[in-house]
């Protein structure tokens, strides 16, 4: 078996909430010991409701926040950003795409500069090289070099999400964390972005951690599914197994609550 790109062992994260003038301070256990691994070229989907710790986990995986305890290994290398400083090499391995393409791009920065910034900060490439790479990346995500000098407000939601994906790919990462990348988009645009992600994964052999609450999207894109509930993993199995036969009670509730858009379920509803 090959070495996993990402391995999480017993990751926990506590948030300390200070009490007010008279209140007691308390500790929120946002993550209570998460274990999983992702292999190269695969997609792991993380599913759960708001408040279950999905985004906390995403921040830890992308080395934005440190874990309170536990071991995070990327390409077999153990990383603890609370102890050691983050190197540019590490930065290049993991990148993130956020949910809201309207909030994640600086409105005063031209698209070309948005794409070049990761290179500027983490590599020693010259201006000419950076420009060339940015142009190439724009084409790769379905935009064009003519978009280089435009500002974010000139793009639609779907195009902005393409830009956010392009920015994440500028450093040719091994692992891409996608935090609800399509939930702010329309159905038809969502399909385009999902196709783009599938194309890129094939072309660049990328590994995805795909965070979502939309089970129909997860069913389409994931290889493995991890279901979280109040900071714990309640179920972690392959996509086909989990959709065919959800074991945990919470997974079953989640599946039952997802609205189904097929003819049989409409017939069933109308006959009642």
């Amino acid at each position, binding site marked *: 078996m090959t070495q996993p790109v990402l391995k999480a062992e017993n990751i926990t994260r506590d948030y300390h909430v200070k009490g007010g003038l008279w209140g007691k301070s308390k500790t929120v256990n946002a993550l209570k010991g998460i274990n999983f691994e992702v292999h190269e070229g695969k997609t792991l989907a993380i599913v759960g409701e708001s408040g279950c710790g999905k985004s906390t986990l995403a921040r830890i995986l992308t080395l934005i926040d440190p874990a309170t305890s536990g071991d995070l290994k990327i390409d077999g290398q153990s990383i603890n950003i609370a102890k050691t400083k983050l190197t540019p090499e590490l930065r290049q391995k993991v990148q993130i795409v956020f949910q809201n393409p309207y909030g994640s791009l600086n409105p005063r920065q031209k698209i070309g500069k948005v794409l070049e910034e990761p290179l500027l900060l983490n590599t020693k490439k010259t201006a000419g090289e950076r420009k060339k790479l940015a142009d190439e990346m724009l084409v790769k995500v379905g935009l064009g070099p003519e978009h280089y000098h435009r500002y974010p407000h000139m793009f639609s939601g779907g195009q902005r999400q393409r830009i956010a994906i392009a920015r994440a790919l500028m450093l040719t990462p091994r692992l891409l964390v996608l935090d609800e990348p399509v939930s702010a988009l329309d159905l038809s645009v969502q399909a385009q972005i999902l196709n783009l992600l599938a194309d890129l994964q094939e072309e660049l052999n990328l590994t995805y951690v795909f965070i979502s609450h939309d089970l129909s999207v997860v069913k389409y894109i994931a290889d493995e599914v991890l279901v979280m509930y109040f900071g714990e993993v309640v179920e972690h199995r392959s996509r086909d197994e989990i959709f065919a036969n959800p074991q945990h009670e919470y997974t079953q509730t989640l599946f039952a609550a997802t609205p189904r*858009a097929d003819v049989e379920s409409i017939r069933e509803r109308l006959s009642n």
Partner: protein
Amino acid sequence: MSLLEIENLRVEFDTSSGVFRALDGVSYSVDPGEVLAIVGESGSGKSVAMLALMGLLPKTAKVSADKLLFNGQDLKTLNPKQRRKLIGSEIAMIFQEPIASLNPCFNVGFQLNEALKTHTDLGKAARRDRCLELLNDVGIPDPKSRLKSYPHQMSGGQCQRVMIAMAIACSPKLLIADEPTTALDVTIQRQILELLMNLQQQTKMALIMITHDMGVVAQTADRVIVQYKGKLMEEAPVLDLFESPKNPYTKALLSALPENATGDRLPTVADFVQA
């Protein structure tokens, strides 16, 4: 007679780059006690039609229609005072962001009471009883203590329940729900949809459900209207629409659903509709 009749509704906005037509000659009607779903992506004009109906569009919008009738009453010729009387009592609306739609400075009881005070002539004690009854109807536990809660002390699902309570406070004939569950988790979404459908069946009010989620449409609607770029694409009973969509755009929308994926990649609208 239909409850709401819209014929050839047009809405235009004057912008610096010329006139933008948000709605282009849309006609449909809603019968009493019917659940109509309006589907479309952002910019398709689904909310604009409802805002035009309620007179909530900004002054820059130009609204014209051959017919805009609610319950036999012409909405075009209403003066603001008459309109305010109608809206909130006979037509009510709930919005997408429950937490943003409630006033953070007042408690829930005050805001519910306000709707009743404006539109009914109930006394103070009767209004309080009605408030408790409403909160109970929308499934909020311990309504008595909740009356004193502020919006920030409640979850998104509970805020949406309060919004629904406010909307049904005066037993409207028509309830417009503009993406009522988009901001909520799926498990909460299910509860809210069930609540809406139960209320609709009990009170026999008409319900317009604006959404972009085909799953929500499949679970709630009797009849569906599909809009695209301000034009009406297709109108059909819900089963017919899912079984045999006629319009290419509807076909595109249904095949873009990830759960209907057959091949390796999802088909997109461009595969079906020429821009």
